[in-house]
């Protein structure tokens, strides 16, 4: 049968198989063992035609250096930060009385933070670089495909003192999983992927909150544990930061928080890398 197929066609078939294998390894192989693939619930939506997307200054995951091959043991140092500008696309997040929309502010803040972290020598992966709708599962899939990473979700609240900032980690003591989420056959449920990382996430949130309270007036001294859905599915240290709030007088007031936010995150991550490396030894 093969003898009847021309040489060029056989080469093309071989090439297609190789590409398919590489794609499979990239999407599925980067996850840690024991974590099943996410349920496919929602895919990225087209961008809003009425609003041009902001310039893509940040690198998408495909533009980043490739992660270590699948199956390789996690490194002892944090090398990658997955930055998550919350909301986007049809999910606009909070709306302020002066017209500020959360999804725009989180993206603008994330771009400033990403630039700072890259200057620190960290690899940055963003869950969205424009005004796309990205589901919780897709964001988690992007993060869980990285090795030696931490996840940081950026939010803007609609209550609380303007200019304050709070760090959160997922607190599993506050919420018991429903029956469908319980671990089965010794495998870690996708919905509970964060559970083994809770102490690291809390430590990261503590370091982050200490930096935030030093720069943002009215911020609490300690981070809060909360049942934040986005953090639950993450298979790495994961925190959320919420800046207050969308009812600021204008967008510039919130944008002015980007630089101190970037410094706070940068310093907290540097401290956390030291702690993490010491404990992984």
């Amino acid at each position, binding site marked *: 049968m093969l003898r009847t197929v021309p040489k060029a066609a056989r080469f093309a078939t071989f090439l297609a198989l190789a590409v398919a294998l590489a794609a499979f390894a990239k999407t599925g192989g980067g996850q840690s063992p024991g974590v099943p693939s996410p349920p496919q619930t929602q895919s990225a939506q087209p961008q809003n035609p009425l609003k041009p997307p902001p310039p893509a200054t940040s690198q998408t995951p495909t533009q980043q250096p490739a992660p270590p091959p699948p199956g390789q043991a996690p490194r002892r140092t944090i090398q990658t930060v997955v930055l998550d500008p919350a909301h986007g696309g049809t999910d606009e997040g*909070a709306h302020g009385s002066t017209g500020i929309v*959360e999804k725009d502010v989180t993206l603008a803040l994330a771009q400033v933070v990403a630039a700072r972290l890259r200057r620190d020598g960290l690899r940055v992966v963003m869950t969205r670089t424009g005004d796309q709708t990205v589901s919780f599962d897709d964001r988690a899939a992007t993060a869980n495909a990285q090795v030696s990473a931490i996840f940081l979700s950026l939010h803007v*609240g*609609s*209550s609380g003192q303007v200019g*304050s900032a709070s760090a959160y980690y997922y607190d599993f003591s506050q919420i018991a999983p429903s029956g469908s989420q319980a671990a089965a056959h010794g495998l870690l449920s996708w919905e509970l992927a964060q559970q083994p990382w809770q102490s690291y996430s809390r430590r990261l949130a503590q370091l982050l909150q200490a930096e935030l309270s030093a720069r943002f007036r009215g911020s609490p001294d300690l981070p809060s544990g*909360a049942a934040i*859905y986005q953090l639950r599915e993450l298979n790495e240290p994961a925190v959320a930061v919420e800046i207050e709030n969308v009812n600021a007088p204008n967008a510039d007031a919130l944008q002015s928080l980007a630089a101190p936010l970037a410094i706070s995150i940068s310093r907290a991550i540097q401290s956390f890398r030291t702690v993490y490396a010491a404990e992984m030894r």
Partner: protein
Amino acid sequence: MSRRRKIAIATLVALVAAGVIYLPGLYQRVVGLRRMPVSEEAERRAVIEPPLSTSTDQPVKARMFWASATVAGTVDETDVDTKLSADPVERGKQLLTALIAGPPDPSRRTLPPGTTLLEFYLLPEGTAVADFSNTLSTAMPSGIQSEQLAVESIGDTLAANIPALRRLKILIDGQEAKTLAGHIDLTGYFMLHAPTPAPPATGTDPAPQR
């Protein structure tokens, strides 16, 4: 003038006279309705007198939890003199209805006005299920802090007044929702712990001035 015409004129005169007598009273009632303060007074009354009354209602000091006026991002206890049922299901309904009605100070509100408690029931082993209307999600100010405050105020109020409760499940329109308003996870069961009562205020009276 014919007899019929006389009757018609008399009837018209009688109607006009009745209108002249009736209309000023009607006008006064309309003006009175306009002047009646609705929002704040109605909310306060809803807290003091829960609309759900049962045969087992007893006067108690209900421990209600709304947003703190002093520490951002936390809830504070407010003791409210009211009547609550001895039946835990009815008691839960009364408490959540009062919580939705809002605190005496509107700035401490944690649940959006217009939210309705559709159903409240108990499962074995102390699991409470509270089913709210969709307004809880759609009118909730979006954000981690505001959603966390809403959940804490519901959980703490129930746990403080119904000690048998251990867990809380929040439903929206009879269905399990993924999140409250985009952040807080509603797929699991919130663990309830009765909040420690606030210590009695001591030394708050100013020293007598000389």
